């Protein structure tokens, strides 16, 4: 299923992935838990899009709570072609007259969808687009971004949704929440530790990207930065812990799926959640619950927080010399539902855990300095 709900909208309207709350349709987060859930308020990005004159084309199917590879865990079914995952937002851009799909990047799914199709996804710096009205999954790293056919469309829509929002306590000051000017780029780093493990197709994509950048006069250099490989585990821990906590509100009491099979409050909780959550969500909840236990907090969760700071510092060191980091978007160019979302996060976690901006296209991602979205979008044009 492409759309959970589709509206009559003119050409060039903007679609939203179904993690973004709207009041005139359901918002499901791809979960049976919220299959009939309609929000009482709309997301700030929706308000901003409407104010800028864009119509909403519909709600794109997403994987449950945005945790998965490319939408394969949606309660409403995956979007595939020839057995390979495509993802609803990418398929919509390929077949529908929408200008862009505004997506919620929790664990890299929109980046993978764009990079493994003909689309482009820009994940802006954390705090520059309001998260008010997005279904919370992993609040410390998730970001609203834009999937489009090209860098100009992505820039246009991103400029419309960026901005400070008093309703989001992590929103940055207004002067930071602007799509700036593209800066000249001299050097780009390829972190060897993050290109390991790719198949030949993906390695070819990375080589092609390097060649395109070099052809436009940019120096591309391979560097080592082993701590980057720890981002996957650290982000897995933080994301799981936050997801576990964020979805604990879905208990069958107030809204969302309620089991018919209960005689007391514990059965109401257990059966409602057992029936309505998919396997990846359940796994993540269990994992997250363990990482936050009194026994594990310091040696697991707190350590992941410290790793986050180390990775932020590692990027800062790299950006002292380089203007961006080139990272594969996935281990291979075609993913299936049998691949593992936690494993594939190896490539997307560095940008998720640091909140740094990234642009994904043509098999790869470019991760840049905070507030360098315009620069990254201009680089995407030469890929």
């Amino acid at each position, binding site marked *: 299923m492409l759309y959970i709900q589709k509206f009559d909208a003119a050409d060039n309207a903007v679609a939203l992935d179904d993690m973004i709350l709207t009041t005139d349709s359901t918002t499901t987060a791809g979960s049976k838990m919220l299959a009939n859930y309609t929000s009482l308020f709309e997301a700030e990005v929706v308000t901003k899009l409407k104010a800028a004159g864009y119509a909403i084309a519909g709600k794109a199917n997403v994987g449950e709570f945005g945790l998965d590879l490319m939408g394969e865990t949606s309660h409403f079914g995956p979007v595939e072609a020839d057995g390979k995952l495509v993802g609803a937002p990418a398929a919509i851009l390929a077949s529908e007259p929408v200008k862009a799909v505004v997506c919620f990047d929790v664990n890299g799914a929109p980046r993978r969808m764009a990079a493994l199709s003909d689309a482009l996804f820009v994940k802006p710096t954390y705090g520059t687009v309001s*998260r008010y009205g997005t279904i*919370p999954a992993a609040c410390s790293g998730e970001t609203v971004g834009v999937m489009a056919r090209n860098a100009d469309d992505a820039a246009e829509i991103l400029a419309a949704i960026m901005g400070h929002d008093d309703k*989001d*306590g992590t929103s940055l000051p207004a002067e930071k929440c602007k799509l700036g000017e593209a800066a000249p780029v001299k050097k780009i780093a390829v972190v060897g530790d993050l290109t390991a493990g790719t198949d030949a197709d993906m390695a070819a994509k990375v080589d092609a990207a390097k060649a395109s950048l070099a052809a436009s006069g940019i120096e591309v250099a391979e560097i080592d930065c082993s701590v980057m490989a720890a981002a996957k585990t650290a982000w897995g821990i933080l994301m799981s812990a936050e997801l*576990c906590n964020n979805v*604990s509100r879905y*208990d069958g009491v*107030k809204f969302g799926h309620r089991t018919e099979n209960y005689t007391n*409050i514990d059965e109401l909780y257990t059966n409602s959640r057992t029936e309505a959550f998919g396997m990846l969500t359940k796994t993540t909840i269990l994992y997250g619950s363990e990482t*936050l236990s009194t026994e594990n907090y310091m040696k697991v969760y707190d350590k992941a927080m410290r790793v986050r700071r180390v990775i932020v510092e590692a990027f800062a060191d790299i950006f002292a010399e380089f203007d961006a980091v080139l990272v594969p978007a996935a281990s291979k160019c075609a993913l299936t539902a049998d691949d593992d979302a936690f494993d594939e996060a190896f490539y997307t976690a560095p940008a998720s855990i640091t909140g740094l901006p990234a642009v994904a296209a043509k098999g790869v991602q470019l991760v840049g300095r905070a507030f360098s979205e315009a620069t990254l979008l201009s680089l995407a044009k030469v890929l």
Partner: protein
Amino acid sequence: MRYETVIGLEVHIELATESKIFCSCSAKFGGEQNDHVCPACCGMPGMLPIVNRHVVDLGMTAGLMLNCHINRTTTFDKKSYYYPDLPCSYQTTQWFAPVAVNGLVEIETSKGKKGIRIKQIHMEEDAGKLVHDDWTDTTLVDFNRTSVPLCEIVSQPDLSSAEEVVAYLERLRSLLRFAKVSDCRMEQGSMRCDVNLSVRPEGSTKLGVRTEMKNMNSLSAIVRAIEYETARHIDAIENGTEELVQETRRWDDVKGKSYAMRSKETAGDYRYFPDPNIMPVVIDDAWFDGIKASLPEFPEIKRARYTGEYGLSDYDAGLLTESRAFCDCFEDALAVCGSAKEVANWLISDVMNILNKRQLTVDELAIDGKALGALIKLCMDGTVQRGNAKKILTAMFDETITDPEAYAKEHGFIVSNDTGAMDEVVTRIVASDPKSVADFKGGKEKALMALFGKCMKELKGNCDPQKLRERLLAEINK
């Protein structure tokens, strides 16, 4: 063997803010069920918590009133547990860096003065309420109270008797009400108390097995519960009547017994972690200094000042300093009229009378102290008669009167200097009531009062009673 009781208290107080801790819903007590509710405080996805700055003001104020160190960077953390009255299935509280730590509260009991150490004060959100309907055998949830801001004040186990616990709670209540942190009404649940209690042989430094009694909400129940638990612990130790285990117990005040609720082994792991949606709150110097400057004088310091500086009796000063509202009113009125004794008399007799008649507490006094001062001044200089001034005072409780003189003019309460009018009334009344005149002349003092009253009524009270009396006697004896 002699035993000593070791008690630590966790006191929850509802903070006196207009709105809830993370949304703009009303934080007022009462209202129709689920009236004070929005998507944020009933746990709907997509709402993000925005810290109510006034909550931090009051948390800091509580900390300073209880001599705590204020953490200038304070964080909010999530505490996870499932219960239907907790809409998000997590409570936002302070675990890693509470707003205030390491305080000291001095109490006084029959055994003298004692310092009780405060471990920490943290800010958090309250949970909702479950309403059980026996008729339909259902349970409904009322979210009015969810996210109402609380402070939890955690003491060290420094208390050793029910008397000390009561003295401590009364001291907390007095200090926090004075600083307008909370109204601290146990009967409305705005002050609740968890009692942690253990017993050990006197002189021992090793703590015994601790039990916790949750949500105690009256001083008398707390006293009974402490006495019962102490006896139960000693009995268990001395006579082996039962094995003491670390557990949470419920106090049944009707039966006068405590019952086991859950033991430590089965207690859930709250899985605390920092809330990523709330940036650490940084209290800068300007903020800190502003709160520090706004702290009230402690009640006992005020009391000493009222007796020393203003010459009030210790009894009167004690009455006035029971309530911040009375002190504020007293000081404002005094600044206008200049007579501490007059203001104290008005507050302790007339104002207290009106409050009693209206079944209001001293904290609910809402009249403007400056206006009261102006009224007392009018009375002192003879512009308005005391009887009429009382009428104006009563009116002050019903409407905002900032200028009593204008009000007095409007309602004809100004004492007239027109002796012609007095002469006319006295002559007429004396002429119209020869019986009273005769009675008075025959020695009945009361008859004069009857005539006086008639004249006063005609003059609407607006004359100097002394002059009226003189004029009346002169007329009778003419």
